[in-house]
């Protein structure tokens, strides 16, 4: 059967119409206000932890809970693993994501522990391509305040952050570099990498 270009045009228009109609529906799950509210909540929890007087181990456990609750850990883990994620089996991805979550919580927990006695405040939020960037300021005693940004997306189906940018240094890029180097150290063996991650950070 000959394809009628006119009909094909209508079909394309109908499909793109559907796609267009779907966009505002999806975007309504997250807007500037909800992105900001999410990080407001997260920052309140972080502020509580850093001023709780807990031991280091307790703090790391608390940070991991916050991280699991507010971060899109699977996408961060996948991004950190880079191209190697294509070769990984689903079981390996699950194990890697779990090990990565612990590693990242300890690593960033250590950084956030340095904020003890200080506080973080959300100051601004704006769109970032199809996602949002929420800007916060960390104030530590006797030091100039510094810039802490959170990238928030609803593309996972939930409103979650997927990147932290500290004074321009972004977590996705540094972890991509670090995990890539660790994988090289382990001659590309993902299982060995997972084992190493369990004790790193």
């Amino acid at each position, binding site marked *: 059967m000959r394809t009628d270009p006119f009909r094909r045009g209508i079909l394309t228009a109908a499909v793109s119409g559907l796609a267009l109609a779907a966009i505002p529906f999806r975007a309504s799950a997250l807007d500037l206000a909800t992105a900001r509210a999410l990080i407001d909540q997260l920052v309140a929890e972080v502020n509580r932890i850093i001023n709780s007087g807990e031991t280091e181990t307790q703090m790391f456990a608390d940070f991991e809970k916050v991280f699991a609750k507010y971060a899109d850990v699977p*996408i*961060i883990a*996948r*991004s950190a693993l*880079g*191209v190697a*994620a*294509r070769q990984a089996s689903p079981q390996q991805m699950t194990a890697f994501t779990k090990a990565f979550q612990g590693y990242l919580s300890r*690593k960033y927990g*250590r*950084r956030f522990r*340095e904020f003890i006695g200080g506080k973080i405040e959300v100051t601004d939020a704006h769109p*970032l*391509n*199809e*996602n949002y960037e929420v800007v916060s300021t960390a104030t530590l005693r*006797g030091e*100039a*305040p510094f*810039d802490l940004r959170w*990238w928030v*997306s609803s*593309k*996972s189906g939930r409103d979650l952050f*997927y*990147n932290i940018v500290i*004074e*321009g*240094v*972004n977590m*996705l*890029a*540094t972890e*991509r*570099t*670090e995990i*890539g*180097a*660790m994988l*090289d*150290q382990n001659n590309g063996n993902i299982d060995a990498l997972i084992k190493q991650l369990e004790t*790193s950070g």
Partner: protein
Amino acid sequence: MLRPRAYVMAWRSGRPRPGTCELRTVQLMTSRLFSPAAGRRLLPAALLAAAALSACAPSKGPGVINDPYEKQNRENHAVNVALDTHLIKPASQAYGHVLPDPVRTGVSNFAGNLSLPSYVMNDLLQAKVGDAAQNTLRFAFNTVFGLGGIFDPAGALGLHAKSTDFGATLATWGVREGAYLEVVVLGPTTERDLAGTVVDAVTNPVMFLLPNVPRGYPIGVKVGSALGNRYKYNDLVDSVLHDSADSYAQGRLIYLEKRHYELGQKPPAANDPYEDPYAN
């Protein structure tokens, strides 16, 4: 007057590709800004060296790290890691344990205060009048009410330093960043920033403001302040320098990202891992 040509040739020799340089522009600008007064003879030469260094590196696309000297850089990095392990870290631990916190803070405040005139000079070269005013006010306030800068009453009022340097000035003037470099002792930098560091070192206005102070004195304070920082941020420095799987690559990324942020550059097309989880 020193013969700048010779300097330029010296800097250029051995470089892979001279390419087209923005040398003339910078030469012109600097010759207008600074008269070769006695005692400042080094300045034009340093500026020319700066321009020669910065303008000739081949530029790369956005998001691509320009590191043609990686092999040499990695060797220098290994030296720096060894220096930290055997000298800087132990010295900073001794410094931190011997001097109580308020003394260390005083040294760091004092060193920071001595940097302000240099910031102001660079602010003016970048036509950032607001920052120049803020840094001048901070310098005046802390020098007068902070016992020569030992205390930081300005900071308590929210009047913080807006740090800058000649590398940032060169960036404002349109000089390209050039290649990434890791230099022994100085650490991560770029061709443009290294040139800036050299210029800042020989043009520090404090030398002209305090002509009677022995030359080594501000340097001693800076070294103390640097050891104090190494002590204060010990865990952070250790995690990057000694615990990273590839501390060279990690240091390079952190330096460049932080530097681009300081220079107000937009990060290259922000990565959206949802679009392509495998892309950079």
